[in-house]
């Protein structure tokens, strides 16, 4: 190399670049006192920069930051935390708990399998239960309607079927909403004055 190193080439050596390009540069530095001095100066500057200390903010800095940070706990993390809170603390208690859960799981699985083998009986029992619940709910609604509006309304309700039920429910809800609004107006009235 018949010239001094360019500033970019000094930077290359300074950054410790490796490769074919740097070998002749290194050779030149060994032979050229001027370029060696230039590189040494650059290295000294880098050393000085690297030894600049980290400065410390005030002691209350972290607290001031954290006061302004909104810590948001996602629902699944909160749920997991709750579960963790329920976990027994000691190994013995955990062993008991797991044994209990395991036994319950085994019993439930066995019962489910037994019910599956008798699916027709299960469907029949569910149908019967649903029918009874429906009849009980119907009787309850009938009683309420009879108390509020008399037996004529019950008869009308029974003859009109599902449509009548929806109409009655809508009227009831409207009535409740109007009543609630009127009561709020009555309560808020004296405060405005």
């Amino acid at each position: 190399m018949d010239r001094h190193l360019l500033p970019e080439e000094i930077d290359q050596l300074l950054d410790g670049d490796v490769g074919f390009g740097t070998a002749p540069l290194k050779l030149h530095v060994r032979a050229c006192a001027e370029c060696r001095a230039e590189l040494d100066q650059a290295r000294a500057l880098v050393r000085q920069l690297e030894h600049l200390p980290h400065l410390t903010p005030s002691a209350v800095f972290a607290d001031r930051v954290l006061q302004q940070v909104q810590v948001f706990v996602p629902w699944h993390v909160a749920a997991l935390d709750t579960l963790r809170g329920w976990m027994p603390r000691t190994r013995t208690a955990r062993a008991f708990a797991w044994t209990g859960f395991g036994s319950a799981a085994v019993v439930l699985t066995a019962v489910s399998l037994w019910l599956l083998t008798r699916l027709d009986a299960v469907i029949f029992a569910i149908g019967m239960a649903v029918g009874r619940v429906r009849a009980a709910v119907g009787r309850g609604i009938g009683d309420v309607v009879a108390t509020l509006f008399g037996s004529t309304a019950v008869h009308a309700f029974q003859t009109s079927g599902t449509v009548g039920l929806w109409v009655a429910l809508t009227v009831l809800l409207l009535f409740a909403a109007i009543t609630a609004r009127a009561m709020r107006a009555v309560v808020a009235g004296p405060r405005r004055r």
Partner: protein
Amino acid sequence: MTVSLPIELPSSYDLSTLPDADVATLAKEGREAAFRELVHRYERPVFSLIFRMVRDRETAEDLAQDTFVRVLNHIDRYRPEFKFSSWLFKIANNLTIDHLRKRQLDTISIEGSPHAATTAEAEATSVDVRSQGESPLEEIESRELGSAIERAIAHLRPEYRSCILLRHVEGRSYEEIAATLDLPLGTVKTYIHRARHELRDALAHLRT
């Protein structure tokens, strides 16, 4: 006999051994200890970078605080495939550069504006880094900021300053600096090259 839970959260001791990405993930889950750990890890580097840019302790604290508050309040946006520190330094640098642009402090150094034509003008625009009632630590910092190299850094353009500080004080690679400052790699190399050159020139009188 009491033993720790198998799914117990890491204690504060454990947090200090975790990589940034894991601590940030815990912060995303709303763990307050993780937020504190992130502040603890980076308060000094972030504050140092900003302090060397603005050269005023109070402003530097405010900007560093804004940086952390902004980052930690948006921790849900952090993607672990990127370096947490690069994100943090990016916000810190952006806030600082914005501040310098607004206040035009980029021309102010402890020795006064480099654009000052007379000594009186330079004195009028100089910043006294030693305020009344400084703690011993602040006195040391003031002395450090007053050293030749600190003064030389203060005279650099803010863009050069960010680059040179990230490269040599924080030990970041050129690629990281480019990503942090949203600059092309070539521009970062040029800035660092020019900053080194200006610093060497500024410190030349010490060698003679």
